[in-house]
């Protein structure tokens, strides 16, 4: 098992390196001048040049690439053009918010999706199955930003207008008066702020997971060893939960890895809609501001998270499926 993880880790290194290279060249070869926003048309050529030198843009591309990689190896992502702070600091500040959002969303999505998928598979062809399939397909086809807006419309603004007992805040991670809250209130407040963004993000994923789980479960239920289990006289719950479920969930685990890119794409929208100070919003804003170091750093963090997520799902796969283990 340990060698398996080591092998996968080793394999991930070239992947991350490749991604870093891709990011660097996509960002730096693209047209558009990052210095433009610092200068007005009247700036003298010497001053313009000075800005370029300050930003390190006077060097040829290969040298900048090597420098950037060298700094990267030391954990240095450079300084932001627009914030005048190290990119690492900005990321350190915002990453926890994004992780909180993503982890709650993916957790919620898997719990909801798997439960619904199993229920549908066990009650195949029932009314519940068809309704859940249809509703699931709608959520599955929904742009998450629109779902988020609709959630805000209903559970924040609408709830306010119609005087519903619970009204969720529509923006930010915590209340303005957060600092003055008691610990219990603090937890409550964080949860309230988390609910809408996490649910909007989770529902779209959950719909996909439910569809996949249902298909996988139906596939397993048809297999020979399920017949063997029934022939032994095992009760239906035992057959389903001990014999079918684990086999059905093995392919679902790969979804963790597959869905991460979607999840992080989703956070970009959700963070924008809910003014959630996180990585997604940071990257979008930095692109609009041509803040290359932040764009590169932020994108790299996302990509690394996806790679790590894939790694985790591979390892989980090996843990759950004895056939994969190489010991």
């Amino acid at each position, binding site marked *: 098992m340990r060698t398996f993880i080591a092998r996968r880790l080793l394999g991930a290194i070239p992947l991350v390196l490749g991604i870093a290279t891709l990011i660097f060249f996509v960002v730096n070869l693209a047209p558009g001048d990052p210095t433009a926003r610092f200068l007005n048309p009247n700036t003298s050529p010497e001053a313009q040049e000075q800005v370029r030198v300050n930003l390190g843009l006077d060097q040829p591309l290969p040298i900048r690439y090597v420098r950037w990689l060298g700094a990267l190896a030391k954990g240095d992502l450079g300084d932001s053009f627009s914030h005048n702070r190290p990119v690492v600091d900005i990321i350190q500040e915002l990453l926890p918010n994004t992780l909180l959002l993503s982890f709650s969303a993916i957790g919620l999505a898997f719990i909801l999706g798997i439960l619904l998928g199993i229920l549908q598979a066990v009650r195949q062809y029932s009314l519940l199955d068809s309704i859940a399939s249809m509703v699931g397909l709608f959520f599955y086809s929904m742009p998450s930003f629109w779902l988020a807006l609709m959630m805000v419309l209903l559970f924040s603004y609408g709830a306010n207008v119609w005087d519903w007992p619970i009204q969720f805040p529509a923006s930010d991670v915590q209340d303005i008066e957060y600092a003055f809250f008691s610990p219990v209130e603090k937890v409550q407040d964080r949860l309230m702020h988390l609910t809408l963004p996490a649910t909007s993000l989770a529902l779209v994923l959950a719909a996909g997971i439910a569809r996949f789980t249902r298909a996988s479960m139906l596939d397993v239920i048809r297999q020979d*060893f399920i017949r063997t*289990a*029934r022939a032994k006289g095992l009760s239906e719950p035992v057959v389903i939960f001990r014999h079918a479920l684990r086999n059905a969930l093995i392919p679902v685990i790969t979804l963790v890895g597959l869905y991460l890119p979607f999840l992080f794409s989703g956070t970009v929208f959700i963070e924008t809609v809910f003014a959630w100070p996180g990585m997604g919003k940071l990257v979008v804003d930095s692109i609009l501001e041509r803040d290359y170091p932040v764009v590169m750093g932020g994108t790299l963090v996302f990509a690394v998270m996806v790679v790590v997520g894939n790694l985790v799902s591979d390892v989980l796969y090996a843990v759950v499926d004895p056939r994969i283990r190489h010991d």
Partner: protein
Amino acid sequence: MTTRPDLLVVTDLRTHFTTEVGVARAVDGVSFQVGMGETLGIVGESGCGKTVTALSILQLIPSPPGEILKGSSILFDGEELLKAAPARLREIRGNDISMIFQEPMTSLNPVLKVGHQIEEALRLHRGLSKSEARSAGVALLAEVGISDPEERYDCYPHHLSGGMLQRIMIAIALSCEPRVLIADEPTTALDVTVQAQILDLLAKLQDRHGMALLLITHDLGVIAEVCDRVVVMYGGQIVETGTTQDILTRPEHPYTQGLLASLPGSGDRDVRLNPIPGTVPSPVNWPAGCRFRDRCPVAEERCAESVPELLPLSEETTRLARCWRVGSIGGPVEGST
């Protein structure tokens, strides 16, 4: 032939499947009995309904699309299984009647250790504790001829060979000392040398435990090796029954005769094989009358209209064939072998 009390009596079993193109009458009025300690073989080509018959006994037919029709009866030791409550049925499965299947590689759960899969039935039906079940399970592995049973006990199925897995399937099936063992093509997926091992093992275990064995196969050689009596199936129906000796040496039904003539026998290489022409019709539309008519070398006009019930060939009621020629002539059909 000794008379043994009938343990399992199947009467007029009909199992149909709803498919897109119509109702497939996979098993269509099958009746037979298995006595204590007896080995009954069911033989036939693919699509003849032999496996569906086996699965119907324990009601392991996926439903929908499968359905056992009203009027069918499966008596186990006098008890009607088709009317048994689901809980009672589960008590019987794996305990009084157990089953082994064709593909040992896919018939065991790939993510559970084989030991666990042996224990399950023991703990469920015998109420053994975990440690009791383990020692019983290890003993079972030893009994079915697995070396290093302690070690194998903690293996996952993918670590073991097909022959080994089939032994484990047999161990699971035997764990609660069933009175009937249904073996559905137990050696088809295995190599000849391993097949011989498994057949020997089944015969030995049957001697030791005195259970009834219902062996389903397409291989007449396997039948010859282990069975006392044989049921030959074609088109969802029984076409002939009798002792193994009778069926293999004096087949009466044209289908059985054709089946035997199709086999490359030992020796004579210069004699052309005499295969049955054509192919098995679809279970969705069996021909009217005798279902073998289209392929039968001796079919007559009346065969297109109707087909007899199983007719006795002599006073012995165990020797039956579903063919007009048997009834009218009152003796064996002229052999085509």
